[in-house]
């Protein structure tokens, strides 16, 4: 029996036909039933076969998560639904661009922080930087919080994408 009380966070990886409306179908499934989307990324991953991969981070009780997976799987353009959170070990990454506006000590400190997070400097002006940072979500969040404390910031995050470790390949079934 599925637990209906505890809320969990899951990262799902969904392989779909890249056809018009497919993203609306996926998003509509969540909004129509009141489920959460914490992040969502989508891009074509196989041009020849016109496949896209949607990575979505969602939260809910195990009963809700199970329902979400079944509903995603039921969509006609869906080829596979992987729950990375319960599957074998997996890796997750997110990329963020962070613009920070600051001067003096704060400017020096922001560079030092960027360095320790292995962020790359994509752009600089006399009173600003644009950094690129990648990592798991908590690392990205930590970086953004530090930057926030050093100056005015603007942030763009990609949301999580992920896949399983090891030699298993998710193909069209």
């Amino acid at each position, binding site marked *: *029996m*599925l637990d*209906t009380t505890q809320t969990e966070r899951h990262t799902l990886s969904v392989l779909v*036909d890249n056809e*018009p*409306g497919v993203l*609306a*179908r996926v998003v*509509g499934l969540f909004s*129509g039933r009141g489920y959460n989307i914490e992040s969502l990324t989508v891009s074509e991953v196989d041009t020849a076969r016109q496949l896209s991969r949607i990575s979505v981070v969602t939260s809910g009780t195990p*009963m809700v998560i*199970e*329902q979400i997976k*079944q*509903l995603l*799987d*039921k969509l*006609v*353009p869906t080829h596979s639904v992987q729950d990375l959170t319960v599957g074998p070990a997996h890796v997750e990454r997110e990329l963020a661009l962070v613009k920070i506006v600051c001067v003096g000590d704060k400017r020096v400190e922001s560079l030092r922080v960027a360095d320790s997070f292995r962020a790359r400097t994509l752009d600089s002006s006399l009173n600003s930087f644009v950094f690129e940072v990648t990592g798991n979500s908590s690392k990205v969040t930590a970086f953004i919080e530090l930057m926030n404390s050093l100056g005015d910031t603007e942030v763009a995050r990609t949301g999580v994408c992920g896949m399983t470790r090891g030699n298993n390949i998710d193909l069209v079934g």
Partner: protein
Amino acid sequence: MSKTQTAAMMPGAEVILKVMEAEGVDVIFGYPGGAVLPIYDALFKNNSIRHILVRHEQAAVHAAEGYARSTGKVGVVLVTSGPGATNAVTGLTDALMDSVPIVCLTGQVPSHLIGTDAFQEADTSGITRPCTKYNYLVKKSDRLQANIEEAFHVARSGRPGPVVLDLPKDIQMLDAPYVEHKSAAPAVQRYKPVTSPDKAVIKEAVKMMKQAKKPVIYGGGGLINSGPHASDALHRLVGKTGWPTTLTLMGLGALPADDRHFLGMLGMHGTYQANLTMHNCDFMLNLGARFDDRVTGRLSEFAPFSKKVHADIDPSSINKVVNVDLGIIGDVGETLEALLAEMEAQSFRPNDKAMARWWEQIEGWRSRDCLAFEQAGPVIKPQKSIQRLYEMTMDRDVYVTTEVGQHQMWAAQYFGFHKPNRWMTSGGLGTMGYGLPAAVGVQVAHPEATVIDISGEASFLMNMQELSTIAQYNLPVKIFILNNEWMGMVRQWQELVHGKRYSESYSSSLPDFVKLADTFGMKGLRASAADDLDDVIAEMLATDGPVIADIRVEKEENCFPMIPSGAAHHEMILGPEDEANKSISEEGKVLV
């Protein structure tokens, strides 16, 4: 489609009809308009597909639903862009909720005008995305055939449902390739719902069945959708186990109403014995039902002592609202056959001693005779009118559709169904105005059968323009209106839940139904007193053409038994005497 196969080129509209012929379509329910004129033009020259002209696009979908539910085939709809498509939306939603296979072709403005707010443009694929199983905006002529074939495959496979094909006018006119022969191979590869149940799961299910001391079979619309063989297999399962069986509103007819194992419908207006059997069971076998809230009542108290096995073709139905001990994914007909074979293999024997005790308890509940009513005096009891209609049509091949309201529940309670596909009602969406157009579709599919729309006067008014369709095709539909001059079900809730404040629920300014029939060249009949009832029913049945029968019933009769919203199965109100003792909780009032 093999690459070497040469394709014939022809206008898209002709491809559309060719594919439909290959899919076995013999009738389309539709309404023309600018954006579908090329298809209408092709239909004009076509001899094998019949077109039934409805009077409103919502009715086209309900007619196709009636056709589909009574035949097991896909119902087909053809409507124009913009208002044609938006008018169809209620029907599509109805078909989605009740899992009815429909393919709906909608016209669309030509491709180059899409997105410009062109005349009669609507974002049909956007509007219908949440109310269809799947939809297409056909953009390329060379995908037309594949898209239509896939649409039929998706509509009828797995859990059936409505599919919309939005067809820009240029796509209908431009030449498109058509390859003679079934070429749906790519479609079949893409959408392949599981239909055969897992063997290990079936083994486990039978093991659980062997432990049952107070079992119940709870069957739903999946039994009907699976085809008549599923009802046949259910019959054998019930015979072999001797288990009590209840059916949902959508499942009626899957087991003959006079089978002694049948407890009647369950749920909000289900029988006392069905609901108490559910409440007290220790094992529940759900066959193609979906734990709808009309069935379960308060979830926290739903069958609290039971182990539950749920067989459903839709994996997302399992554990959606009720957590079960075992889910069986597959076609319910196949599942039943697999269960029967496995019961043989595991030498299943019903536990006679336990069953005797269980049936004794059930017969106790049954003896409360919860559907009893008294026909005293001249005013016709609505229950009586359905009971007599049932008794007087028993020797016929009869198909019943309904509208939504008290009359619908009384029909479910007092009309016995003995075969699947004989009962067409709007369950999930509860769409007033469903029954009349649905009856059109049923009668078109079964010209010789007796087709009766059991109606309420308010619901009838919602799609009564279809009288014109009925007249045009001389469809001998019998419209049996339980006229209580109220939106009875609304009035009942206002009486029970809202302190008898009858806000806007009176059916004022009704037409004279007998004269109305006359204006359409139909027979109109009226029964005003109990003594008239049999004569009116007899005359209605003896009439070759369509009939409107205005049955003036008791105006303030309530529909019982009833599980008030928010209550549990064992908290039923049995009748007016019982009403006072059971008040409706504040949480219950929020529910519908």
